[in-house]
């Protein structure tokens, strides 16, 4: 890595769900439109990250942990409150812009046979569309379900953290477009410090559920290059709670395979040796 490792810190506590990141990403990277169907899942018509969706803003509607006081509007309110007509209690809308995590230990990169996926000088993980041969090994390798093959094309695509923009000294398009600085881009060490301060600040303000996700270099993927501040458990946002690099066990597996192969060879040799001796 010739440059400082950079990354994203996505602070979902200030995300307003405008989806400017999704549009800016598609505009800059010339990604095709990939579906004009209403999902009827809140305002999320994007659904998931994929070959043609490199930023995805999730909308989660859930009961608010501590309800706000409802002011009585008119007489008879008390009886109306006892038999509520619709949803009980207050509601909150969790919004979060998901993206490729640019893992420290990236399984997609480990399994790529062509070298299409590579670690850049910025510490990010990039797939090169002119080298990818469409084998698809990276797809099941990703513990987050980020990378995907484009139908009718076969090649794999995902967020490049705007590798071309980084090379020109610019921040990625999504971070540039984010109007609330929910998506922050910068040197990863700096972002981790800033994120820790932000969590403390939220805890002090009484938002006790605020937590970081993917910030820990000791987690199953060695820490994410793109990490998050969440307001609920990762599962609520559709994120795996304890991701593990899928190639973690490969060395052990090779070791076992090697031991097995050696035993087999040894056994065969013994067989030959024995039979040979018998023939004499």
């Amino acid at each position, binding site marked *: 890595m010739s440059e400082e490792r950079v990354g994203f810190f996505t602070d979902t506590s200030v995300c307003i769900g405008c*989806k400017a990141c999704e*549009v800016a990403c598609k505009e800059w990277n010339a990604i095709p439109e990939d579906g*004009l169907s*209403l999902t009827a899942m809140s*305002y999320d018509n994007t659904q998931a990250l994929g070959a043609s969706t490199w930023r995805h803003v999730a909308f989660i509607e859930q009961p608010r942990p501590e309800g706000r006081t409802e002011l009585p509007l008119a007489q008879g309110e008390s009886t*109306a409150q006892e038999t509520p007509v*619709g949803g009980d209690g207050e509601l909150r*809308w969790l919004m979060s812009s998901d993206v490729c995590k640019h893992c420290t230990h990236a399984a997609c990169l480990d399994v790529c046979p062509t070298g299409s996926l590579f670690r850049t000088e910025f510490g990010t993980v990039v797939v090169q569309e002119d080298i990818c041969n469409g084998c698809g090994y990276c797809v099941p390798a990703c513990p987050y379900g980020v990378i995907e093959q484009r139908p009718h094309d076969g090649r794999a695509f995902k967020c490049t953290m705007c590798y071309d923009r980084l090379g020109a000294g610019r921040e990625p398009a999504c971070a540039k477009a984010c109007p609330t600085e929910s998506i922050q881009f910068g040197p990863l060490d700096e972002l981790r410090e800033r994120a820790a301060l932000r969590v403390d600040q939220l805890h002090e303000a009484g938002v006790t559920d605020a937590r970081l996700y993917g910030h820990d270099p000791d987690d199953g993927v060695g820490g994410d290059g793109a990490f998050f501040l969440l307001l609920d458990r990762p599962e609520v946002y559709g994120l795996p709670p304890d991701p593990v690099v899928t190639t973690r066990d490969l060395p052990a597996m090779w070791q076992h395979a090697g031991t097995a192969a050696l035993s087999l060879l040894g056994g065969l040799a013994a067989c030959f040796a024995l039979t040979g001796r018998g023939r004499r």
Partner: protein
Amino acid sequence: MAQLDGDCKGYFLMGENPAVGSANTRLQRLGMANLDWLVVRDFSLIESATWWKDGPEIETGELRTEDIGTEVFFFPAAAHTEKSGSFTNTNRWVQWHHQAVEPEGDARSDLWFMYHLGRRIKEELAGSTDPMDRPVLDLVWDYPVDGELDEPAADAVLAEISGHGPGGDPLSAYTELKDDGSTRCGCWIYCGVYADGVNQAARKKPEWEQDWVAAEWAWAWPANRRILYNRASAAPDGTPWSERKKYVWWDPGQGRWTGRDVPDFVPDRAPDFEPDEDATGPDALRGDDPFIMQADGKGWLYTPAGLEDGPLPTHYEPQDSPFPNALHPSTPRNPVRHLMPREGNRYHPSGDEKGAEVFPYVVTTHRLTEHFTAGGMSRWSEYLSELQPEFFCEVSPALARERGLENGGWATIVTARNAVEARVLVTDRIRPLRVEGRAVHQIGLPFHWGPNGVARGDAANELMAIALDPNAHIQEDKALTADIRAGRRPRGPDLPKLVAEYRSRAGITPDTGTEVRK
């Protein structure tokens, strides 16, 4: 209405889509079908440009293309990146933008269109002796043009609006305007936007090179004043109310108002000034009368003049409402509201009136981040359309149960004007209103869609009645009543039949909802 009555013969639509964005879109289209000519300038073939061949009334059989006499012209419009010009925001800042690229194909700026149209009309009328043509022939229409497309210089138009003195020098403030014909100005509030012969609106000094008021970022009308009535930021004696928030104050040493902003007051009128008994107009304002545009210089809650209603703020129910007015039982709605009762624009029975139960729910319309107003700029963009691809209605789980609506399924919403179909979004975000001990369900409708473009759907404004507020004539499309039922709406002639059936069930007559008092 003048179109329907045949009084209005022609219509220019520039960046406007009334077939989607205006109340009672069906009547809007029928009005356009009664014109001699219609000019639409937009980026795409919006609904207001194609209603004559594929609009909803063609489908229902109410209109036949071959019967429509309107001659429709469509001109592709240049986008803001393809022309120079200004944006004025609600903070009154006039912000200039420069052309980045030439418009593609036949697209031209609105300025290009208006200038060359005027030039051609003058050429057409040249030599005419008809006195009616005199004003057009005498009109000075000599803007410089530039480039291959002969684009008029937007800068020159701004300079003309800003105004010139007797010697042709640019004016720097509206206070320099004279009523003796020696000065020229397009509009007094913009006077000075071209002060010193410089486009003040094009100033882009960064925030770190000036104070927080940012007086050198663009230009604010009038007089580059960023906050109106800013004399009120100082106490009656002219000292700031708060040292931390001080903004405009009296400088006794200089004998003038000064501060961070351009003071909105007579510059040298001292805080303790008292006018003569016989003074009139602005001269009669005291030194502690900050609201200088009011006759008495005071802020008004009681408004004895200038409004059609008033003099005090009060509460009226919307035109179509499920409730009587608890505050004014005898006068549920604004007695001076502007109604246009006619065929196709019938109002609902409200409150405890007979037939109100036919439209038992409250409809409110709203916007989404992903689309812009009537959709002309967003429904043709694939990247925005895929984020909000279809017209939908938002209902609470309780209303969904009551009417058998399924999340993701279809629903039909009906008023006395029209019926639309929408996909259903069941959400706890939409909560029933509890008024006077009674719960009434709400239906939320984003209004951006129409039948053209990448993301298509019915227009929520099909449901609206035209009912206007008496002062600013704003259409009332944020609160009305309706019915909702599961499934898609009828097609063809069955659609108006369904709406007529609803009208008859509710006992709606031409007089329904038009009363001044109960």
